């Protein structure tokens, strides 16, 4: 069996960002301690399976503090013979060199900063507490603390963004000289403040967003940080091993409120409810899909990757009509939305923008 991935959701934030719809609550130290204990308890309910990635996402995982994070890492190592990629998400403003050092010592070897933009005005309208300068400092600090595998997030389609400001952000990222970038197109979800405030009116229109996205791909590719997934870019060898598991339809366990798991053919999740999570000792699963991992799901996830899907490898694994898919792919190739190489199909940057429609037209 292949080693699995581990995900820990840390739902604490000092302040909610107006565009964020992930599960998060106000930080409380006592709650953080109970939460840590429950995560560890939940880990010990699993068999001794081998894992090779651990990812702390949030919220703001660093709010737990390096010692608690270390306790979770140690528990995971013990329970899952964990070795490999250890990632923690961090905000450029809530981290200093000392903390980064502690994180390194705790066992993390990868850090992902929510930089989002290299333009202070944009950072302000995103409600981010940090400045471009602080982002620079944070990345510098991480490097000094010994991190070589650093990722930064970039947001596309945000209020007031223009091709010029995007270029500034990209130049800034180039200056940061990091081996991994996640570039997401802002999607304003219901229930967020951006939604309430109708911030969409301040954002670039759909056509412009498409251009911004394509510019981003072109720029990052040109500096050797190459696209390997719809929203992810890396220098060779720095692709996120953990995230690749999602897209390759490999198994992972999620710990903590709102965390998702895919294990033994089932997808399940903890509800977005910290109290329920704590009071059940991490035992409040809900199954979201009993028969996960089918061909459609596989194809849907796999086509997010630049490497695409290799139909010749799937004959034994799935029942599907290969010829039909290849036939349907043909006209899409002519429209420049995907490429076909033998039996490998992969989307082009233009194709990534309409990936849902492409996937639906290939497999339905």
């Amino acid at each position, binding site marked *: 069996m292949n080693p699995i*991935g581990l*995900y820990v*959701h840390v739902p604490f934030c000092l302040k909610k960002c107006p565009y964020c719809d*992930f599960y998060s609550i106000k930080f409380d130290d006592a709650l953080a301690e109970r939460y840590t204990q429950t995560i560890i308890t939940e880990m010990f309910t699993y068999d001794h399976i081998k894992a090779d990635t651990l990812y702390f*996402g949030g919220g703001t995982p660093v709010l737990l503090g390096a010692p608690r994070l270390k306790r979770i890492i140690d528990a995971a190592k013990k329970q899952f013979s964990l070795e490999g990629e250890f990632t923690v998400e961090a905000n450029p403003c809530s981290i200093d060199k000392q903390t980064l050092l502690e994180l390194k010592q705790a066992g993390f070897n990868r850090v992902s900063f929510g930089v989002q933009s290299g333009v202070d005005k944009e950072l302000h309208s995103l409600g981010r507490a940090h400045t471009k300068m602080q982002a620079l400092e944070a990345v510098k600090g991480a490097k000094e603390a010994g991190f070589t595998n650093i990722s930064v997030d970039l947001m596309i389609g945000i209020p007031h963004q223009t091709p010029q400001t995007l270029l500034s952000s990209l130049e800034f990222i180039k200056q940061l000289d990091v081996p991994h970038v996640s570039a*997401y*197109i802002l*999607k304003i979800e219901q229930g967020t403040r951006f939604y309430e405030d109708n911030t969409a009116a301040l954002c670039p229109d*759909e*056509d412009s*967003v*498409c251009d911004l*996205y394509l510019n981003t791909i072109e720029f990052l590719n040109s500096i050797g940080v190459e696209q390997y997934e*719809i*929203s992810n870019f890396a220098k060779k060898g720095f692709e996120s091993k953990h*995230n690749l*598991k*999602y*897209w390759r339809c490999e198994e*992972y366990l*999620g710990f903590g409120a*709102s*965390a*998702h*798991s*895919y294990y033994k053919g089932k*997808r399940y*999740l903890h509800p977005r409810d910290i109290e329920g999570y704590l009071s059940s000792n991490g035992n409040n699963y809900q199954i*979201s*899909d009993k028969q996960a991992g089918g061909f*459609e*799901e596989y194809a*849907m*996830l796999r086509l*997010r990757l630049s490497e695409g899907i290799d139909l010749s490898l799937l004959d034994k694994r799935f029942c599907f009509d290969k010829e039909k898919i290849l036939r349907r792919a043909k*006209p*899409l190739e002519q*429209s420049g*939305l995907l490429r076909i190489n033998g039996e490998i199909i992969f989307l082009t940057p233009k194709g*990534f*923008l*309409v*990936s*849902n*429609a*492409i*996937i*639906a*037209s290939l497999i*339905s």
Partner: protein
Amino acid sequence: MLKNILEVISLSFKRENIRNFSIIAHIDHGKSTLADRILEKTSTVALRDMEEQLLDNMDIERERGITIKARAVKLNYQANDGELYTFNLIDTPGHVDFNYEVSRSLAACEGAILVVDASQGIEAQTLANTYLAIEHDLEVLPVVNKIDLPSADPERVCKEVEDVIGIPAMDAPRISAKMGTNIEAVLEKIVAEIPPPQGDENNPLQALIFDSYYDTYKGVIIYVRVKEGTVKAGTNIKMMSSGAEFTVVEVGYMGATDMVPCGELLAGDVGYIAASIKSIGDTHVGDTVTDANNPASEALPGYRKVNPMVFSGIYPADGSKYGDLREALEKLQLNDASLTFEPETSIALGFGFRCGFLGLLHMEIIQERIEREYNLDIITTAPSVIYKITLTNGNVVYIDNPSNYPDVANIQMAEEPMVKSSILTPTEFVGNIMDLCQDRRGIFKDMKYLDDTRAELHYELPLNEIVYDFFDALKSRTRGYASFDYEMMGFVPSKLIKLDILLNGDVVDALSFIVHQEKAYPRARRIAEKLKEHIPRQLFEVPIQAAVGGKIIARETVKAMRKDVLAKCYGGDITRKKKLLEKQKEGKKRMRQLGSVEVPQEAFMAVLKLD
């Protein structure tokens, strides 16, 4: 109670005490309400059984407030002269599509009540049916209804009836069917002025079929007016036009809520015949029923076979429901011999049926009944009329499906059906109507002013121009005040061409239609625009083209979709992503795949309404 009535009816059976009549009225002028009041006054229906507008027994009829199929009911009335009278009220369809059926219903009567709205006056359709009644030598009794309305002006309306129709009307009963006011006056007029039927029960049988319907247990039930002779159970009857013969199982008359068997139907009677008839196709409205053993020397005059005038393709939205659609059409046809259908296939829409209708309303009713009563989602193609094409080799072909239209090179002469139309309108809209008719290639015949405020216009119009949206256009240009009626005139030579619609370079057969040369450009442009509105962006650019022969005369483009929602898979949460995919797939189901282009079903409908 019922027993009493039956006795009374059998006692009263004297031909001179029978009154056979119809009610002629415009939609909403109160025909059904008056019929209900008459039923009530003659206590044919106990009050508790009264449902509003009893005679219209189909849901659609009730909702639209119009009567689609004729029905008949037998009533008895104790008149002021102390005599007991038998009334046969024969209801007539109120729409132009059913003109022929109206004429047959009228032929079964000696009189007609003309109901006119006290505030609105005569409408085109009423006028047409009244002329029809006068043509059949019917005694026409004008009745002014809705006198309870504040805007009622009975004097003006009576004068209008006298001026326009030329029958005395000043003493017409002023009634309110809704309030039940003055209904007796109508009943007494019926007794006094409508002549009793003629005929001799000892002559060879001649009975006029004016309606029929299919009963699951008894087979086809035909409604007849016996003109001469006698018919009873055991009589071997023969349909004089179709030649089909049957043995009568049962005769009777129509009560308000059910059928009442009786011993025999004699000359002058209106009733039904059940003879285990399997197919409604054997019982044409207008045909004469005679005694096979003692046949009449000739059929009653006026019979003609009704031919469908408007055609459209009907396809199941879900191809697997083809069998269900066939079954629905077969069942509808059991009761409606004027509906025709035959299988056809379309490259775009798959397997379906080419259906023929008497007119647009008939078409809409059938479509609606398929969807409502049989719960089927259907796609209908643009209505087409029938074209008469003389080929260069001298053969004549009739084309009811634009996709079968011959190549221009093979056409010597193309002819299209024309109608004689009459439009009644308040004078202020005359200009608008003239513009509209002009635009629809109408040929102006004449116009006369009925009074200071109303005018009647006569136009010859190509049927082709009225099947799309003429009614809607007329209504919107006259704020709903104009009324319209037409009758078929025949074929006239015309400069017709076939317009093809291409999506992404491929002809979509279901969207082709025949159009007059002069109208090709504007209609092509309009259709292309409409399609653009209704075809969602796809993964590639979709050119929409309209072409005549090989020549493109209009073009629009649906731009390619650039971006859909890029849901994140953050923290391994793929549920949203999956939902999006499901939604996308669900959306696809409602689409028709035409070559590489996905077209929503609404697009086919949208091109039907271009105004």
